[in-house]
C-alpha cells in the first residue's frame, strides 16, 4: 500500500520535504514504518523521540496503518 506521511520540524529538515510517500506491505504496524524510515533517513535515529500520529492521535507501536489514514511523523514537541 502507499502511505502519505506529513513531516514537521526537524523531521521535515532531515527528510528534506514536507510530505513523504512510501510504499509498504498491507497492514503495516507503526513500528515497522518507523524502522523503514530510520533506515532510509538515518538522521531520524538521533532524535530524542519519534512518534507516529494517525488521524490526530498518537499511535501505539503495534497499531496497523491503512492507506486512508492521515499519518504524520512527530519529532520531540516543544510548544509553550
Amino acid at each position: 500500500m502507499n502511505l502519505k506521511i506529513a513531516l514537521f520540524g526537524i523531521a521535515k529538515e532531515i527528510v528534506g520535504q514536507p510530505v513523504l510517500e512510501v510504499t509498504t506491505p498491507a497492514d503495516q504496524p507503526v513500528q515497522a514504518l518507523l524502522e523503514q524510515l530510520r533506515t532510509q533517513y538515518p538522521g531520524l535515529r538521533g532524535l530524542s523521540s519519534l512518534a507516529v500520529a494517525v488521524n490526530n492521535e498518537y499511535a501505539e507501536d503495534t497499531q496497523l496503518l491503512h492507506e486512508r489514514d492521515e499519518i504524520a511523523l512527530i519529532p520531540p514537541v516543544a510548544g509553550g
Partner: protein
Amino acid sequence: MLFTYVPPESIALITIDLTDQPINVAATLDLVQSDGAGAVNTFIGTVRNKSTGRPVVRLEYEAYDSMALHQLRKVADQAKEQWPMLERVAVVHRKGTLQIGDVAVVVAVSTPHRAESFAACQYIIDTLKQVVTIWKKEFYEDGDVWVAAHP
C-alpha cells in the same frame, strides 16, 4: 471570532486557538470571565532573550494544526474532568516568527476558588508542553536549533 465581543452567556466553556497573529491577552482573559468564578488564573509564556546562556534573537513555532487543536482540546477536557469546578478555559498558542518579549502562549482558567485555578492552569501548560504538536526553533547570532530535538 476570538477577539470580537460575545455576550457572556454565549461564551464557550472551552476555547482553543492557534494563531499566526499577536495574541490579545486581554481578549483571552475576557473569554474566561464567569459570574460563578472567584478566581481567574493565567499563564503567559513569552519569548526569552537567552537559552542555556546563549543569546536568542528570535523564535519560530511550527504547528501540525489539526492535531495541535485536537490535542489541546483533549488537555482542556482532561482538566475539566480532574477539576469539575472549572468554569471556563481558554488556551491560545502563537505560531510563526516571534521576537523577544512576544507572547507565545496564554492559558486562562476560571474557578470558584483560587487553589483549583492554580492547579488546573499548571496542569494545562505542563501537559501542553508534552503532547501538543508544536515545534520551536531558536535562532541565535550564529545558527539555529530545533528545541528538544536531540538528547
